């Protein structure tokens, strides 16, 4: 298999091509540095993303409070995580840093508030 990626390790944005099978990476080309190679490998084997959204607040001044995952979650679980986030209603008052959902969907990441409500 073959995939074209744009490296995001730095603003350069190198176009990288990765050849791989189900079990291994065969080649990484197009990168200008080691970081690019590492980025490309992770993108194929275990791509992750930070997730930010908001959570409904009950009894607060503001209707929603912003949240983030405290570590990246698997990219293919972003929409599943959104479903979880959308099903929650947190009681006011909410404090910045407060854990809203612990270990969301077993990813090891917590969903935490990023502002006071």
């Amino acid at each position, binding site marked *: 298999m073959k995939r074209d990626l744009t490296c995001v390790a730095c603003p350069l944005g190198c176009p990288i091509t990765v050849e791989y099978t189900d079990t291994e990476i065969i080649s990484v080309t197009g990168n200008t540095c080691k970081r690019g190679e590492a980025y490309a490998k992770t993108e194929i084997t275990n791509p992750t993303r930070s997730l930010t959204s*908001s*959570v*409904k607040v009950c009894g607060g001044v503001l*209707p*929603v409070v912003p949240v983030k995952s405290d570590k990246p979650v698997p990219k293919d679980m972003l929409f599943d995580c959104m479903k979880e986030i*959308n099903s929650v*209603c947190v009681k006011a008052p909410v404090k910045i840093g407060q854990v809203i959902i612990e270990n969301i969907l077993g990813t090891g990441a917590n969903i935490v508030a990023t502002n006071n409500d």
Partner: protein
Amino acid sequence: MCYDVAVIGAGVIGALTARELSKYNLKTVLAEATNDVAMGASKANSGIVHAGFDAKPGTLKAQLNVKGCAMMKELCEKLSVPYKNNGSLVVAFSEEEMDTIKDLYDRGIANGVPGLSILSKEELKALEPNLADDVAGALRAESAGIVCPYELTIAATENAVVNGVDFVRNFRVKEISFADGVFTLKSDAGELKAKYIVDAAGAHSDEVAKLIGDSCVNLVMRRGEYFILDKAVGDMVSHTIFQCPTKMGKGILVSPTVDGNLLIGPTAEDIEDKFDKSTTANGFKTIKTFSVKSCPAVSVRNAITSFTGLRAHPVNDDFILGPSKVNPQFIHASGIESPGLTSAPAIAEYLVDIIRNAMGDVTENESFNGTREDVFRFRHATDEERAEAIAKNPAYGRIVCRCETITEGEIIDAIKAPAGARDVDGVKRRTRAGMGRCQGGFCGSKVVEILARELGTEINEITKFGAASNILFDKTK
């Protein structure tokens, strides 16, 4: 309940006619098809008070223009509407065009226009130094002015309501029947009964007339596109600058507005769709080409917005005013294109005279108060007035629209006013919130919040201008 008069259409003609009717002991209803007043040509025109030299002598246009122009200043003072007697100039670019200027001068004299003079190139440039160098001369009309057309409509409606007129919105007349000397007007929202109808439905007045079987109103929709430029260039000219008129109208003008912006436009293009208020790439080009001809320094780079107005051009080239041949209790007020705004106060009197004469024993409303209570405008107030206003109502201390310096208090006033604002554009026209350089980027969402709070609804119920023009969908969570 049966009204004496139902005025259909709350444009400037309908609103001023309703106000004029409220001077008499008549039960009047002003029925508007949309969510607000001034939603047709009255909100999207040049805002010019024409002196009256354009129309052919002897026409209704000529007669009512000159009369309306003379009435405008006092009316605007009473209704607390911005008006400025800035004068107009029709500019010629050749000796041939100077001949047209002379014709216009003669026509103006025949129409009884005061304060007309023909200027030489030097006199013209001294008066307006930013005009093009190849001007040949101009016709100056000292009686011409500028007015805010939608504010006039809003103020007239408000004053009519204060004096007893009922205002009904979202009432699009779909059927009219007549029995025992009384009309029944039906819309999706219900029905109204009235002895007389004034058809001031603007672009739709031909359709309304057809509802009683009168097909004498023959209109062509003429699209006019405009740019509004930033206040930074609002003083490029002090007069309203016209070019020599053509068959399609008065051409592209460059004019200051009462709010301090510069207005350029309109184009003139006949179209089919009465609801088509889109702007076009060709229109933009035309405005650019012709506005720089008058004023080379005009640049659409300073544009803060553009808009389109539809004027209902009557095929016979004159206003259609008076009783229908089908039913004399149905009064036409159709084909009110330019100088319709200028003529409006005179048209209102003209129409009400017809109704009074027809009805016979109409008495004056002794409690009529033609003066609209002063509207607090933070931006125009002195520091002392501001401090005093905030002490009385703290909402005047909260600036919502930062570009135009509009306070929350003024927005609440606009919503609570008689026939007040129900949507974002309604607040904008009444207060100017969202009309500045950021065009509501910052204050738009705050206006939505204030509307929802004052009207007691959720913010996703609030629309831009009624109907399906909602701004928000469901909650995210």
